[in-house]
Structures are given as structure tokens and as C-alpha cells.
């Protein structure tokens, strides 16, 4: 594929608002997961909550979009001058030449969960102020983003569970290459809600403590919330040294089971191999893998088998989910940005919380941050329904793109 430039990006999660706080948290190994005290939830688990969302105010003409998910989207896009960068791109290319493709799994469902509690006692009707299309509907956050930036190009939400905001890179690639658009605002936004907390609990997949990816005693996920945005464009002729490029992308389906990965990670292998192939690289070109690494027994086992099948056992890898929690539909985008920070600041981020690496996984899992020049890294995102997506990102000055 033709490489694409991540010209601007930003991320907000429980480890920080914006890139600077996120980088500091990663470099200092900040523990931000906490015992669950979200809303009325009564479960023994840990969560990664973004503080302060209750005080975020929607723009006056966009009140109908008011919900936790869009508040987090707005808070995130105001960091790192991202909103300014989109406005400038709109001036450069035209508002109709910028697409908006945002990943989310649960959108504003929390509003509906609360609206059901507040049904009219006599008629059973939902409250008048519950606005389905602007909050619960899966499109809501992409619609909100498009209106917030006053863009008029194509837009939709991508909602394939935990691969959603990795797959938006693929959507944008096709749209740009086809000439439908010149640039895309892509990303992922997912927020805490009862459906995912009680839902993962029903499957026995919530850890009672902060999740420990790839630990021999890992026992489930910690759910987090996050928003991450990227402005994706064709590379300029003269790239800055610290420019981050999307070099390759692989997508596949397990065709195996609705909520368990293929035990050999067959679909994951296909996604990783295709990502290498589209980047015209081989396994030895990858300096670090940011694993999907959810900390469920089955995901980490299947992913390790897939990594072993595609790479040698020495490639350093880790999961960011011990830091951010599993941010579901936002995970792909925020982990791509963590990879971009690792490339720019030349370090391998160590995975938090893990005490004893599961020897059966046979992977080079990193427990500590390690200074190291990185040229190209891979980020994996897999999800329910057997959806898989792998990205290859590279640092311009290291791969000689100038």
C-alpha cells in the first residue's frame, strides 16, 4: 500500500489527557486503573475512568448530542491542537474533501440504559429528553465529530467491537486511495456503560483486580474508556524526522466463534501477515508489537500462538491494557498512538501489572520500559465476532522516507 501520514493525533484515557500526559504516564508506569465505582455498578472489578466528563459542555447548537461518549470525544479533540489542525486541513483541502470515520462499540448506550430506568410508570414510555439518533445510535460519535468540525465529506461509524478503531485506518486508506477524499479524521471513542461491564461479567471475563496481560494467572479484563483521534493524509514530499507513517494494514475474520478467538489465532496470523505484506516487509523488520493483550486466558494464548507463527520468539512485545484498561472500540486508535509515541521517543513500553509471564506463551513480553530506537512497530486489535486488524507504523527518519 501507499504509506499514509498521521499528520496530527491525540489521545485521552485514564492515564492522561493529550499526548504529553499520556507519554509521561507511560514513561513513569502510572497505575490508573481503580476499583469500579462507576454509576450504579456493583461489580468486583477495576475500571479505567476518564475524570471530569460530567463537567464537559457540548457547544450550544449541539446539545442534542449530549452523552458521555460525545463528551469524551469533545474533550479529546480539544487536546494537542487537534481541532485547530482539522480546521486548517479543511481550509487546505475543502470541507467536503475530508472524511470522518470513527470506531465505537457502544456509542451513547449509557443514555438508553438510564432512560430505561426512567420510563414512565404508567405508559412505559422513555423520557422526552432521550434523543436516540444523537446519542445511542452507533453513528452518533461520527456524526458529532463531523458537525463539530463543520465537515461535509463522507462519514460513518465503524463498529466491529474491539477492532473498530484499528479498522478505521483501512477505511480511510481506501477512501483516500480511491480519490473520494484527501484526508480523514479517524479515531475511536468508547465510554464506560452498564452493558459492557455487566456483559463481560456475564461471560466471566472481568478480572477482580487490575488486569495482568500475559501473566500466568491472568483472569480477565479491566474495562477502560478512551478517545483517540488521528488526521490521516497522503505524505508530504518533505517529511519531518518525527513523522509517523501508516505502512501496512491487515484485516481478517476468524469464522470460528462469536466470543472466543480461534485457538491457534488463525485469523490473527492472517491479519499480521497481510499487514507485513501490504507494507512490503518481513517479520524481522518489526521492532516491537503492541499486543491486543486483553488479559483473558484465551485471547493472550491465541495471540501468542499467532505471534509465534508469524514472528520469531524474540520480537519484544507488550500490552497497553494494564495501563489504560481495555478501551474496546477505542483500543485500536489509542494503541496506534501509543505506538507512535514509542517510535518518536525511542522506547519500548513495558506492560503494567503482570508479575509472572506465562511461560507457555513463549513470547518476549516486556515488563519494564526500555530505551530503544524503533523503526517499525505493529499494533494488533481483535474483537468479538472474530474480527482482526493489524497495523504497521513507522518513524520517518528511521525508515529513510525522506
Amino acid at each position, binding site marked *: 500500500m501507499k504509506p499514509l501520514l498521521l499528520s496530527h493525533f491525540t489521545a485521552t484515557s485514564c492515564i492522561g489527557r493529550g499526548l504529553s500526559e499520556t507519554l509521561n504516564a507511560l514513561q513513569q508506569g502510572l497505575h490508573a486503573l481503580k476499583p469500579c465505582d462507576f454509576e450504579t455498578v456493583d461489580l468486583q472489578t477495576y475500571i479505567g475512568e476518564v475524570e471530569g466528563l460530567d463537567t464537559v459542555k457540548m457547544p450550544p447548537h449541539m446539545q442534542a448530542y449530549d452523552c458521555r461518549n460525545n463528551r469524551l470525544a469533545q474533550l479529546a479533540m480539544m487536546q494537542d491542537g487537534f481541532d485547530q489542525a482539522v480546521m486548517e486541513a479543511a481550509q487546505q483541502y475543502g470541507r467536503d474533501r475530508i472524511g470522518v470515520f470513527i470506531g465505537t462499540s457502544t456509542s451513547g448506550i449509557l443514555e438508553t440504559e438510564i432512560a430505561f430506568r426512567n420510563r414512565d410508570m404508567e405508559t412505559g414510555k422513555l423520557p422526552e429528553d432521550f434523543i436516540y439518533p444523537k446519542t445511542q*445510535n452507533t453513528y452518533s460519535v461520527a456524526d458529532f465529530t463531523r458537525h463539530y468540525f463543520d465537515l461535509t465529506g*463522507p462519514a460513518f461509524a465503524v463498529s466491529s467491537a474491539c477492532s473498530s478503531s484499528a479498522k478505521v485506518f483501512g477505511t480511510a486508506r*481506501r477512501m483516500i486511495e480511491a480519490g*473520494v477524499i484527501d484526508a480523514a479524521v479517524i479515531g475511536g471513542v468508547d465510554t464506560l456503560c*452498564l452493558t459492557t461491564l455487566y456483559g463481560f461479567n456475564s461471560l466471566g471475563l472481568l478480572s477482580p483486580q487490575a488486569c495482568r496481560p500475559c501473566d500466568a494467572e491472568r483472569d480477565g479484563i479491566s474495562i477502560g474508556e478512551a478517545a483517540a483521534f488521528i488526521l490521516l493524509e497522503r505524505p508530504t514530499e518533505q517529511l519531518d524526522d518525527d513523522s509517523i507513517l501508516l505502512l501496512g494494514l491487515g*484485516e481478517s475474520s476468524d469464522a470460528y466463534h462469536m466470543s472466543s478467538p480461534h485457538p491457534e489465532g488463525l485469523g490473527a496470523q492472517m491479519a499480521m501477515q497481510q499487514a507485513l505484506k501490504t507494507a512490503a516487509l518481513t517479520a524481522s523488520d518489526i521492532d516491537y508489537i503492541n499486543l491486543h493483550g486483553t488479559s483473558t486466558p484465551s485471547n493472550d494464548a491465541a495471540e501468542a500462538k499467532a505471534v509465534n507463527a508469524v514472528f520469531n520468539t524474540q520480537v519484544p512485545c507488550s500490552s497497553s491494557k494494564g495501563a489504560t484498561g481495555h478501551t474496546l472500540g477505542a483500543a485500536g486508535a489509542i494503541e496506534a498512538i501509543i505506538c507512535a509515541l514509542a517510535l518518536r521517543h525511542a522506547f519500548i513500553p513495558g506492560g503494567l501489572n503482570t508479575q509472572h509471564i506465562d511461560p507457555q506463551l513463549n513470547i518476549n513480553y516486556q515488563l519494564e520500559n526500555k530505551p530503544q530506537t524503533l523503526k517499525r512497530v505493529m499494533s494488533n486489535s481483535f*474483537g468479538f465476532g472474530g*474480527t482482526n486488524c493489524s497495523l504497521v507504523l513507522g518513524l520517518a527518519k528511521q525508515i529513510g522516507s525522506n
Partner: protein
Amino acid sequence: MTVLTAYISGIGLLGPGLSSWAASSAILKGTQPYEANKTIIPAPELLPAAERRRASNIVKLSLATSLEALATADMLTTDLPSVFSFSNGDGLNCHSICECLASEDREISPTRFHNSVHNAVAGYWSIATKNMATSSVLCAYDGSFGAGLLDAMTQVVVDDTACILMTSDTPYPEPMHSKRPIPDNFGMALVITPQITAQSIAKISVDVTQEAADIFSDPLLESLRSHYPSGRSLPLLQAIAFAQSQAQSKRVIIDYLEDLRLLVEVTPC
């Protein structure tokens, strides 16, 4: 933008009074009267027993329309990229989860939970068709068909691959029904190919436009188009039906977003 050109090589359709594409093209052309009957969804024979038990209407609907489209396209399915573009997903499943979470006992069913993801249909479909190729799972509210068509066309044109597009709607029960009144089940599938095949039905060229979307003069057909997000595909299917029988090119404007529509030129094969 660059006009995206490809071939419609298979069509599947299922909705109220529309039992298949084969049975509906005459209705869309007006040579056969439309009768408003409830949608009848066939059993999903292709699914393994465990998945068949858990499959909801939106899964069965999408399987039925995709199988008709694949059969007319005469296409093997194990390596076929797919696009699923749904306005809501499974309405009954969403209702059941929200009702449970609003009750004293919040123990939701694991099956309900894994069926709640927007890509549940893509998961079942890939299992049923043993298809390990990529699937895009999208939503653009009432513009979901337009979004899916645009995404599918970019796959076909950029990656030079065939692609199947599925778009389906199922109703919510009350109280959600009052907020999102989808009357019945409706689904549509298109197999799109980069080159002409022996089965190709029409050539389409897709561009974006600010012009208003075409509406039907027939009130019954217009009711289907306007009540179902996946029914927004019907003006395109009508243009294909006319192109097929009259060997004439047609120009049709498909609804997408409030300020953006898709202009489709339909040419007979």
C-alpha cells in the same frame, strides 16, 4: 471526486411484500402490483446448530439476502470481503439488555451480550459461509446504505476485489419503537465485482452529490424507502430493474447524509 465504477453481479432482497430480488424486480418496475405483507424470514440452514439457536432476526435476514445475492452471482464465498452497514442492529436484543439493566437483577445473558455487538451479524455470517476475509461493519443512521455502498465501492476499486454489501433493519419493541419506528424486517444484499462477469446485471458508477435524493411517486414504494434505512437502496434496485429490461442507462440519486447524497449511473450489461 473520482467516479467509482464497478458491476452489480448479484442481488438479494427481503422485506414486507418483497420475498426476493427475483420476485420483486417486476414490482419495482410497476409491472406487478405491490402487496403489503409482513416480511417472512427463512430459517438459517447454513449455520451450525449452536449458532442457529442463537441467531436473531437480523442474522437470518442478512443470511437470506446474502445467499440470494451470492447464488445469482454464482460466487464461491470463502475469500470474499464483506461490508455490513446497519442503522440499528438487533432491536429486540438491545431492548432485552436495557430492560434487564434497568431491573433489580442485572445478570444479562451471555448470548444477549455477544449478540449486542454491531458486528454480531458479521461474526455469524463468517461462520456460516466459512469466510475469513475482512468485513467492514458500519453505521450511518438513516444513511447506512449509502455509507455501505461507498465503502464497498472503494474496496472493489482500490483493492480490485469482489465484495458483498449487506444492509438490514429489524424493529425495536416499545418503548424504543416510539423513538425509532422501524415497522418490520427489511434487508438487501449486493455482490459487487470489479470486472464484468457472466452473471453481471448492471454497471454502476458512483459519485457524491449535493442534489436531493430521488423519491418514488408510488406511495407504497416510497413508504418502504422512507421507513427503512436499508430501503433507501430501492431506487437503485428499481434503476437496475429498468436497465435490465429496457436496456437503457438510468441516473439515480441515493439518500446518504443530510447534506451529501450518492449519484449512481446504472448501465445495462
